[in-house]
């Protein structure tokens, strides 16, 4: 018994250590006001300098096993790092970068993951078609709302073999001529893009997996993306909640700090409750992913469903607590609101998450 609990504690300590180190790096190299400047700049809003630093530190390779040249980290450390990135609203592709490395191996190139498709909710069943031709494939169709798609050098892409339901995963060079990249402009200025594949020819070596192996790999990718984004949202929500709480302690109205008014106090407590539920769920999901538990998909589904349902409401509520000052361009609140809105849109469809959770729920009750 002592052994197992000590393992748990050691694991928690390892996560805490990684987080503390990450927070230090982010504090030195990034500040949320940089995001404000990006909003006024028509170019892609991200921080290549910070990204170079974290690549050198090996963050994107965290989930890659040590024997494959990675950091050999656990899912809980990945979630912890994502939360730290969210806390300062850092404009770097940590989640997609780490998940791309997890499934395709370490790389120096800026790499992302493209799962979403236009007017299609279920990422587990891609519609982008791959037609076998000669030794390779020809890919036709569109991936939409690809995070960092406008600046990535390559991209993990899910597709289905034409005329079958066999899943294939590729690593695609997004600078190639037959990929049409359409940059999108979102609330947080991050370099999202739609990727259109016009009969793109893919050599056999770009194939990561096919068939049941690809379906399993895709499940792993979806689980880790969901975990990472939900964790990043937890960080965003926690940071803006801390700031609003601090403000409520000191801002005086009607002769007392506004935090003494129950309308403010109770709102902050309820939002904190929503954050703690989200944090417990991502921790729970991280453990399930790490142990390859049968309920891992359901736990991620609960996490992303809850995050989509409740976490964007935290910066919304925080702005209400800040009052007029929170509505100004100079205040950081809208930076968090913007990031939260875009991350919520990136999360897997709540309907799909709901179905996955319900399958588990009805099978276990």
């Amino acid at each position, binding site marked *: *018994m*002592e*052994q*197992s*609990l*000590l*393992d*748990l*504690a050691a694991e928690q300590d390892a996560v805490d250590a990684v987080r503390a180190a990450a927070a230090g790096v982010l504090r030195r190299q990034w500040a949320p006001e940089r995001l404000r400047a990006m909003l006024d700049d028509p170019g892609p809003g991200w921080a290549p300098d910070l990204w170079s630093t974290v690549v050198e530190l090996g963050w994107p390779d965290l989930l890659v096993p040590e024997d494959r040249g990675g950091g050999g980290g656990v899912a809980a450390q990945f979630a912890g790092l994502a939360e730290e990135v969210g806390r300062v609203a850092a404009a770097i592709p940590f989640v997609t970068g780490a998940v791309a490395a997890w499934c395709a191996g370490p790389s120096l190139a800026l790499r992302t993951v493209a799962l979403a498709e236009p007017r299609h909710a279920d990422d587990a069943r891609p519609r982008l078609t791959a037609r076998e031709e000669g030794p390779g494939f020809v890919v036709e169709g569109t991936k939409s709302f690809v995070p960092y798609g406008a600046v990535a050098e390559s991209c993990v892409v899910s597709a289905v073999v034409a005329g079958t339901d066999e899943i294939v995963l590729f690593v695609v060079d997004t600078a190639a001529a037959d990929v049409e990249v359409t940059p999108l402009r979102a609330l947080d200025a991050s370099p999202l893009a739609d990727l259109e594949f016009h009969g793109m020819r893919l050599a056999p070596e770009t194939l990561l997996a096919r068939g049941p192996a690809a379906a399993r790999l895709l499940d792993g990718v979806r689980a880790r993306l969901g975990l990472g984004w939900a964790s990043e949202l937890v960080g965003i929500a926690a940071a803006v909640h801390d700031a609003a*709480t601090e403000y*409520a*302690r000191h801002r005086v109205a009607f002769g*007392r*700090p506004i*935090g*003494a*008014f*129950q309308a*403010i*106090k*109770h709102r*902050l*407590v*309820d939002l*904190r*409750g929503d954050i*703690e*539920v*989200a*944090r*417990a*769920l991502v*921790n*729970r999901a991280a*453990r*399930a992913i790490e*142990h390859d*538990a049968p*309920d891992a998909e359901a*736990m991620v*589904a*609960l*996490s992303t*469903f*809850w995050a989509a*349902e409740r976490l964007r409401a935290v910066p919304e509520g925080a702005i209400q607590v800040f009052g007029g000052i929170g509505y100004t361009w100079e205040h950081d609140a809208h930076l968090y609101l913007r990031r939260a809105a875009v991350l919520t849109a990136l999360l897997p469809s*709540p*309907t799909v*998450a*709901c*179905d996955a*959770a*319900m399958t588990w*729920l*009805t099978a276990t*009750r």
Partner: protein
Amino acid sequence: VDDYGAPLGESERAFRDEVRAFLDRTMPDFADRQGRSSLDVMREWQGRLSDAGLAAVGWPVEFGGRSASPVEQLVFNTEMARANAPEPINRSAINQLGPTIIQWGTREQQLHYLPRILSGEDVWCQGFSEPDAGSDLASLRTRAVLDGDDLIVNGQKIWTSKAHYADRIYILARTDPDAPKHDGISYVLVDLRTPGIEIRPIRQIAGSAEFSEVFFTDVRVPLANVVGPLHQGWRVAHSTLGYERIGQSRTHRIERRLGMVVRLASTTHVDGVARVDEPRVRARLVEFAARVEALRFIASRATAAGVLGRTPGPEASLAKLLTSVVDQEMATFSLDLAGRAGVLVDGSPGAAKGGAVAQGYLVMRAATLGAGTSEIQRNVIGEKLLGLPRSD
């Protein structure tokens, strides 16, 4: 692995298997007993647990317990909840009074009372609250005056649950009226059949009376029934309150209710469509499941922290508030799910779950009132956890 938020060790797995084996052979006898909370069911369940040596797993072995670790206690509670086991009639005495007697009681008190708690021979209730001493317990006014080898008790207790069927009550009474507020109080064990005790049930909104007022008029109690030092009952009471379950049993209550709501949604059909297939219903169920699963994880983390001698994280202080809110919401949603059958009561043709849905709806109004209203909880969390100024 993640059933318990922590991997189980070998002895914990063996313990789990023992508990499961007990449930496998005992639960069939209770399967078709309607109204799981009826007194005879709770009494019989207590007896079965006691016979199997599982009535108070957290107590030391020498007093009939199992000296179970917090993780084993978690295992025990989880297995009971999963099997939808009845509640033992003496649960609060096992969780609170028993450990207090073990810590503070005399050898005679331990030998006399503890086995009778385990077997359910004595059913206990707690007499702490008074009309003017609720949250501010130390302003209690029930007096106990020394008279030779006895105490003479006069006063009134209120919100005493189980008093109408309990055999005994443990009370706090002021034994030294001149001492400062917290100093002159004693912790006294009283037989409810003693002359001078009158019990008046308080009828609640659901129609039944789970609480009572208990009046003491010149009630003579042996001095030997004082637990811990005379006049030092406040410290003893602190032990009792400290033994309050760290949300474990509440976590299991919401797990049980979640299962009930999911099954209700699966078995209720409208125009041939199961309600569990309605998107709005699915979204609500998943929202409940998210909170219940998170609270389960938070409780097991708090247990692990306790075992390792660490301070539980801030999330633990939110657990009571979150638990009572989700519990109440699920009961309310059950009423919506059941449709018109939901408002039909026990005995009516067509009543959903034999009237349990309607009953649960009423009863769960108390979830956000008992053990500190949700508003008080929010004030305390806002002040202690968030560091916000007091609301005066």
